[in-house]
């Protein structure tokens, strides 16, 4: 016996060069030879073999060496070829200790038994057609799993799934070329009470496809296996099924678990993984010394398995499936898969929408409140203007009197001159021009007065602040004259444009000047001086100030002069300056009251400067 370390080293080396072991492995390691009738690359056989190997290694505990051979009997199955293969395998495995031989497919089982290889080694078969094995004598060292495919169970399944089913369309290899499904005339006849058959097996595939695309209603397709359609064309079974299911106008049932997912609805299927695992579990028992005779021969599984996607295509309700059915390719709906996320998202969206709506409502209410407050301010301003107007209506009358008096004198002069023998025409012309000018002056004054007293719609337009000051002073100049106060201006040299309601800003200026007029009333006439000034600051705003030579604000009052109902005048309402401040604020401006260093009050307000129109 070789030392273990040498054995492991040899194994490692062999694995590294990936060449099958030419000599017997160490006695400690058991070996299994797998012989397959068909190519191990076929899906069903491949999956079965894969599952077998995996389960064997995991269930056995100790590693098992697995040899694998594909006989490809459907391609190389002539007696001469089989004899040659037998000779080759005999010499190939003569010196190889084998603990169990596993054969996949009844053809391989027959080959192995007939060749009489290794008579002492237990043989386990899998996926062997029950009908093909009928009458085959099995030596005691042989046991395994048969594969028995039943036409009746698929017909009944079709009727269970689709109760109105009357017809079964059979697609696949001709019965004589399908050793697993010997559904010949007698079998079909036996089921005549349950369904009629459209037998498309063995027909040219193009014809089959044309037919399955236009099957009568109440038909279900049973797709067996299609490797050749009798015309010599060879098919990969899964590819053929995929194509059939794709073009078919009726659902397709299958019996081969490895074909699930290729478009068929599903069926009572033999699952290669199940078969392979089952085989492995029983081979492990053989490896552990169980007698083959102690393991009875088993039949295959018929598991109800369905493709969820195909169920959706054929609108098959889950409730119609047999009990214990397994759904594959289940694609949960977005709702099922992301229920929580969707709920959360919807909740968040709903919340956001609510918030948005609430904000919109709030905004609208706010806008309404702003509009209302503007309207109120306009009304209040109008009232204030009316009150102001009554204050200086005498001045307005005087202002109007000036041009009227001039007109009268000029007209009478003209009459006098016309009485002369040679009326001086040049002078008469001058007089008429003056009359016209004074008339215009009077009517302009009336128009302005009307504008000032008209309820304002609070509309903004671009205006030159200097022009607004000049117009305001035409209203107030008369009052200033009456009160014996000198009213002068100190304007910014260039026009300064502001976006304002001109009437309201004129009102601000008039209010401030009237305030100053009140302030200087107690002084000697020569000391009553008021200056209205405008100046542009930093190209960003324009400041208008009204300063006077009055006593100024009491320092305790200076913070409150813009409050409503604050007044120091016996007859004052205390609204003038507060309305003034509200108007300025409404135009995005600021207003300040202060005392000048040399005495007297100064109120200044600033408005944002705009570009010239």
């Amino acid at each position, binding site marked *: 016996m070789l030392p273990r370390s040498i054995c492991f080293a040899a194994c490692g080396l062999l694995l590294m060069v990936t060449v099958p072991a030419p000599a017997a492995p160490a006695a400690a390691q058991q070996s299994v030879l797998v012989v397959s009738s068909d190519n191990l690359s076929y899906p069903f056989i491949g999956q079965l073999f894969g599952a077998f190997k995996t389960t064997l290694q995991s269930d056995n505990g100790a590693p098992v060496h697995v040899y694998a051979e594909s006989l490809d009997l459907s391609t190389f199955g002539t007696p001469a070829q089989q004899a040659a293969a037998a000779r080759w395998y005999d010499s190939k495995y003569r010196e190889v200790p084998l603990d169990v031989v596993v054969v996949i497919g009844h053809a391989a089982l027959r080959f192995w038994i007939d060749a009489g290889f290794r008579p002492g080694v237990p043989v386990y078969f899998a996926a062997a057609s029950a009908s093909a094995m009928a009458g085959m004598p099995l030596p005691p060292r042989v046991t395994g799993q048969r594969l028995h495919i039943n036409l009746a169970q698929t017909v009944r399944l079709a009727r269970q799934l689709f109760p109105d089913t009357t017809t079964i369309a059979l697609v696949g290899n001709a019965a004589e070329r399908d050793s697993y499904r010997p559904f010949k005339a007698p079998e079909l006849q036996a089921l005549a009470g349950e369904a009629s058959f459209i037998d498309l097996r063995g027909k040219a595939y193009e014809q089959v496809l044309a037919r399955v695309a236009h099957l009568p209603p109440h038909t279900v397709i049973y797709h067996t296996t299609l490797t050749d359609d009798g015309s010599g064309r060879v098919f990969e079974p899964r590819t053929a099924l995929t194509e059939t299911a794709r073009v078919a106008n009726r659902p397709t049932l299958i019996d081969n678990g490895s074909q699930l997912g290729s478009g068929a609805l599903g069926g009572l299927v033999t699952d290669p993984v199940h078969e392979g695992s089952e085989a492995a579990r029983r081979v492990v028992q053989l490896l552990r010394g169980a007698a083959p005779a102690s393991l009875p021969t088993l039949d295959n599984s018929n598991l109800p398995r369905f493709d969820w996607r195909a169920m959706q295509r054929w609108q098959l309700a889950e409730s119609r499936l047999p009990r214990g059915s397994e759904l594959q390719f289940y694609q949960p709906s977005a709702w099922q898969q992301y229920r929580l996320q969707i709920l959360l998202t919807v909740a968040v969206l709903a919340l956001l929408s609510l918030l948005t709506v609430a904000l919109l409502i709030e905004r609208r209410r706010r806008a309404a409140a702003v509009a209302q407050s503007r309207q109120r301010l306009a009304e209040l301003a109008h009232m204030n203007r009316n009150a102001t107007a009554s204050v200086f209506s005498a001045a307005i*009358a005087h202002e109007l009197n*000036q*041009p009227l008096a001039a007109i009268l*004198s000029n007209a009478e*002069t003209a009459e006098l001159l016309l009485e002369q023998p040679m009326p001086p025409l040049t002078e008469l012309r001058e007089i008429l021009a003056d009359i016209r000018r004074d008339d215009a002056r009077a009517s302009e004054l009336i128009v302005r007065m009307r504008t000032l007293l008209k309820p304002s719609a609070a509309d903004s337009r671009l205006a030159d602040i200097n022009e607004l000051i000049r117009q305001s002073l035409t209203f107030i100049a008369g009052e200033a*004259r009456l009160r014996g106060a000198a009213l002068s201006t100190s304007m910014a040299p260039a026009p300064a444009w502001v976006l304002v309601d001109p009437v309201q800003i004129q009102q601000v200026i008039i209010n401030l000047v009237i305030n100053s007029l009140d302030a200087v009333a107690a002084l000697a006439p020569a000391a009553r001086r008021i200056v209205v000034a405008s100046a542009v600051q930093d190209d960003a705003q324009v400041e208008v100030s009204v300063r006077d030579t009055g006593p100024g604000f009491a320092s305790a009052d200076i913070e409150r002069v813009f409050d409503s109902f604050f007044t120091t005048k016996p007859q004052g309402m205390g609204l003038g300056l507060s309305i003034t401040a509200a108007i300025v604020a409404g135009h995005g401006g600021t207003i300040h009251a202060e005392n000048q260093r040399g005495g007297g009050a100064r109120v200044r307000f600033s408005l944002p400067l705009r570009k010239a129109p």
Partner: protein
Amino acid sequence: MSTPLFTVHVIDDDPALRTALGRLLAASGYAVSLHESATAFLALAHGPGPACILLDVDMPGMSGLQLQEHLARDGHPMPVIFLTGHGDVAMSVRAVKAGAEDFLLKPVARLALLDAVERARARVAAQEGERTAAALLQGRLASLTPREREVFVLVVQGLLNKQIAYQLGNTERTVKAQRASVMEKMQAATLAELVMLAARLGLIGPGATL
């Protein structure tokens, strides 16, 4: 106009009205001088001719009363006609108390204006006449000798020649001759006339001094 031209000084800060009033007065035969303020008016030198002032009182600056004080101080008193845009009784009373010759409301009709100006002219003329008569009388008084002046005072006090001769230590005949000289120099025909002249000269009556 036969007499020297009467000048009206128009003081108004409204150029349109100032011009119009000036035109009207000029067309009515007055000399016109236009000023934009009382201060500007006072700054100018004034000729000796008769004149009045048409003053808009709705102006800042000097009031009508102040203007008159200034004129009196400068030795050029002249009547001031007030012109206002908004008059009431109280205001007109105040204006007249402040020395207004007249009180006119704007707009003023031509006739009302000329009426007021004419009244002012008449008053100036009357003042001028009075001033002339007083100067004449003073001249006659100055022509008396000191003795004749004494006799004049005593005569108008009602003393007889005899009493006057006694007081002055003269003869009655001398007094009689001096009295005739006084009557002649003072151009009085009767004693009553002489007494009236004495009163106008302030030689008799309360507070009279010799």
